[in-house]
């Protein structure tokens, strides 16, 4: 490789890194202070771009000057910052007292709402913004032409880093942010107005995301898909850098930007997975990210979130469960379509239950549970279509495939804890997704594989419903048995205090690992059942949106309760199924429904009962 080319490619990488850092710095600050995994951060980025393609051309009408261009960019960032304040005041402030995961669900509701609001406000056509006046041209560097605007972008990242450093070290607000990042409870105990601090932090975080989006308009068009394309990458950067660490995010953005720029030369298809591979490696080697520190509060005994007392159902609960099962079995009396939806509810109920076995009972928050669901589906589907086996052995293979993948990934996952653990599960899920997506000869790539249909005896919708019911309910009862067995209690002990559990001689890692495998196997079974109900498998079965759906289900149902996730799965799927045919803007309604449920039942549907009792 010639020197000039290496230099130009490095500059391209630096420009991307700089843009990525501006976005990720906001995410990491918000997480550091509020401990919220803010899915809506990508939405703020998108809103920043849309605000800029609206405001900047309007300003440039007056005078095509660089000053007005950048004034427009800053104004867009401030507007988005205000939207962050709106989200904090209207939504997040009401749910700081509920389990942290619940806030994640609320921000996911915001993502759905913003997607449709953007379509309503700006229409579906991508909007290309104006180029920056004075920075439109290319600059010659060693005989190669390089965009002036990207040279400018390279300096934006360090400038933002310097400004943030000044803010953090020279202002009271910044000192409070650092203090809260280190120990939130202590800051509250010292009498700091937490509400103001959180509002200010959300403003800063959202404004940085908005700035990141607004700065991109000379390079990319504002479009309705840019939120989700940036959010995973921003997560990766914050995690690699260490959650809450701004310099860490800078370092991680540099690493990813440069790896990307040179990676495409060697493996042109690697962009799909490179960042996640890097994240997995970093987390395995450095469990707190490059510059992150262990959470001070992590050693403290806190009131555990999750299943506290898995006692048997009371009489009312038993009646409710009995009625639900009977209603499912009676669905064929209604019509064919309800049978289909009922089958799917049962499958999702099993998947959600297996996830809550990890989250509620084990304190292992997985952001990538769809991986085991999807690999179960692939295990079963490929046995049928490639090996020519029938449904029965394939359904046996599904939990084995899910469990095997969980054993492999879980071995590394259970070494971590908290948000880093969650992020590693997401990285592994994304790697599995990329393998399935890329390995076209075997998995059929993104087109997937069709022809995964049940054996003749189970082909009718009704028989398949009963088959699914038998297998799902059996698996759920088995997992319930495990939750109540000493093994389940051991997992709860490890969840509540790993140090104390260790002290009384429990091998925490091995127990968690076994629990992870069990949950993966159950999810795999659900995936196998799903494949045969749809007739096809494809990578969306392993994708992040499906993992988020599963999380939504257990949170809606209530992670404190053993059976709550089942209600959550039914409610989530039924709401989605009802909303989709109503309007193109069903995501808006789904998002509103999620937020309404979060606000109305902050402990999930099962919590509603507990409160009434």
């Amino acid at each position, binding site marked *: 490789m010639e020197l000039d*080319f290496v230099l*130009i490619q490095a500059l*391209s*990488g630096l*420009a*991307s890194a700089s843009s990525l850092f501006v976005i990720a710095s906001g995410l990491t600050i918000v997480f550091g202070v509020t401990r919220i995994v803010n899915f809506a951060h990508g939405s703020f980025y998108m809103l920043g771009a849309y605000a800029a393609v609206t405001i900047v051309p309007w300003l440039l009408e007056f005078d095509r000057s660089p000053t007005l261009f950048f004034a427009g960019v800053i104004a867009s960032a401030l507007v988005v910052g205000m939207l962050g304040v709106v989200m904090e005041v209207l939504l997040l402030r009401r749910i700081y007292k509920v389990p942290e995961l619940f806030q994640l669900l609320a921000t996911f509701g915001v993502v759905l709402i913003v997607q449709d609001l953007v379509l309503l406000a700006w229409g*579906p*056509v*991508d909007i*290309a913004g104006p*180029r920056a006046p004075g920075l*439109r041209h*290319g600059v010659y560097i060693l005989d190669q*032409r390089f*965009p002036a*605007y990207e040279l400018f972008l390279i300096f934006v990242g360090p400038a933002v880093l310097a400004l943030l450093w000044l803010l953090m070290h020279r202002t009271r607000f910044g000192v409070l942010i650092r203090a809260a990042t280190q120990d939130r409870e202590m800051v509250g105990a010292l009498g700091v107005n937490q509400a103001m601090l959180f509002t200010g932090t959300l403003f800063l975080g959202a404004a940085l995301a908005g700035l990141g989006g607004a700065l991109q308009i000379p*390079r*990319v*068009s504002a*479009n309705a*898909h*840019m939120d989700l394309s940036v959010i995973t990458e921003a997560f990766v950067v914050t995690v690699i850098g260490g959650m809450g660490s701004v310099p860490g995010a800078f370092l991680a953005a540099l690493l990813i930007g440069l790896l*990307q*720029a040179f990676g*495409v*030369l060697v493996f*042109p*298809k690697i*962009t799909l997975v490179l960042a996640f591979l890097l994240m997995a490696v970093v987390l395995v080697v450095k469990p707190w990210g490059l510059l992150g520190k262990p959470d001070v509060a992590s050693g403290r005994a806190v009131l555990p979130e999750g299943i506290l007392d898995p006692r048997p159902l009371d009489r009312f609960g038993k009646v409710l469960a009995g009625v639900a099962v009977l209603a499912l079995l009676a*669905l064929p009396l*209604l*019509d*064919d*379509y*309800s049978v*289909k*939806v*009922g089958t*799917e*509810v049962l499958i999702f109920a099993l998947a959600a239950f297996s996830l809550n076995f990890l989250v509620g009972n084990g304190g292992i928050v997985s952001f990538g549970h769809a991986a085991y669901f999807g690999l179960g589906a692939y295990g079963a589907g490929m046995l049928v279509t490639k090996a020519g086996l029938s449904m029965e052995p394939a359904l046996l293979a599904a939990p084995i495939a899910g469990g095997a993948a969980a054993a492999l990934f879980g071995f590394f996952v259970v070494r971590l804890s908290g948000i880093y653990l969650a992020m590693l599960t997401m990285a592994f899920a994304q790697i599995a997704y990329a393998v399935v997506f*890329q390995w076209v000869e075997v998995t059929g*790539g*993104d*087109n*997937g594989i*069709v022809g995964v249909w049940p054996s003749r005896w189970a082909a009718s919708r009704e028989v398949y419903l009963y088959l699914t019911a038998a297998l799902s309910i059996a698996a759920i009862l088995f997992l319930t048995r495990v939750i109540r067995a000493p093994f389940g209690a051991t997992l709860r002990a490890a969840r509540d205090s790993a140090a104390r559990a260790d002290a009384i001689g429990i091998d925490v890692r091995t127990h968690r690992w076994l629990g992870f495998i069990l949950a993966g196997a159950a999810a795999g079974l659900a995936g196998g059942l*799903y494949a045969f109900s*749809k*007739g*096809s498998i494809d*990578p*969306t*079965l392993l994708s992040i949106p499906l993992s988020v759906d599963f999380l939504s289900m257990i949170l809606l149902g209530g992670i404190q309760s053993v059976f709550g996730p089942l209600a959550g799965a039914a409610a989530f799927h*039924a709401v989605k199924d*009802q909303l*989709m*045919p109503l309007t*193109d803007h*069903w*995501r808006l309604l789904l998002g509103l429904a999620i937020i309404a449920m979060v606000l109305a039942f902050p402990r999930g549907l099962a919590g509603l009962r507990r409160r009434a009792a």
Partner: protein
Amino acid sequence: MTRITLRRRALGAAALATLARPAFAQAAPIRVGELNSYSRMAAFAVPYRNAMQLALEAVNAAGGVMGGRPLEFVFRDDGSTPGDAVRVAEELLTRENVSFIAGTFLSNVGLAVADFANQKQRLFLATEALTDALTMSQGNRYTFRVRPNTYMQTRMMVEAVRGKTQKRWAVVAPNYEYGQSAAASFKRLIGTVIPGAEVVTEQFPALGRVDAGATVGAIAQARPDAIFNVLFGPDLVAFVREGNTRGLFERRLVLGLLTGEPEYMIPLGDETPEGWIVTGYPWEQIETPASHKAFVAAYRAKFNDTPRLGSLLGYVVVQMVANLLNKAPGLETDALITALSDLETETIAGKVTMRGLDHQSTLGAWVGETALQNGRGVLRNWRFADGKDYMFSEAEVLVARPR
């Protein structure tokens, strides 16, 4: 679950009751289920649905189909995932009692619905999904496709450079099936029109996440004489802007698959590169058939917007469906399939035949050169490439399609 379902059926009945007008009382409407990514791919799907509604009005004003029965489409969002789409297809067939289903945008969704149709033995008219597999390796008796597939469009591009001399080619394509199969077809075909041509570099950025600077740099480094571009949407805008600034397209021949479609050319605005050879839709310049001009006028009047390629497709689909229903002796799936095989329809894009051999229609595309006019991209020197000249050969079909 149960209660919600009952209430919904009641709601549906109430809605139908208010919609039922006296005219409909005379003959039961024929219902077709249309599922598409109206929510996620709105830039394509909404103009598509608009044109369908326009065409339905025309069909029904002219007396409907099958001897006076009104034609009715039931539109549903397919959720953009195979799982959701198969459930929606099920709903359309079992609850809405549609005669058959049509639609789908994404290839994986199209394939999943096609296999579902095969399993349930119901007709599925895939309209937009481009993957070759739909009518080739995974084709089935019940699935037909309207749009020219990836192979046909790639072949149109390749034929357009016959006689040129560029030997070193770069390929840039989104990293998913559409991009990969377009790139593969291109590599296979380019040598047949330019002897000695070779592909010197291939770039496959992730869909919707192109790192345009790095990609442009990597292509320039390979010093190609020409570029075959398969990127579209936001990726295309980013790639074109970066390429313009860095001079990637200067003194290079560039082919752009789908680049000339209004959906993708409008966002390029005044940065539309000049002289690319593309497939597209020069709607404002098309004179024949005459019905096309009438369509454009009616579309603009009704929606106060210019037609997109999706609009053309939507209109053609309804014309084909109406023709099918007029030719078919009944609504049984077998009767529909027999009637649809080799069905010839006069559409606003000329005569379209649904080839019985592989269930692929001969709908064509427009191939031309991009140019700038008043700050927006247009096509010039274009011609209509009739799909029938670019299809897979009979021998290829017989090898690929399962019997």
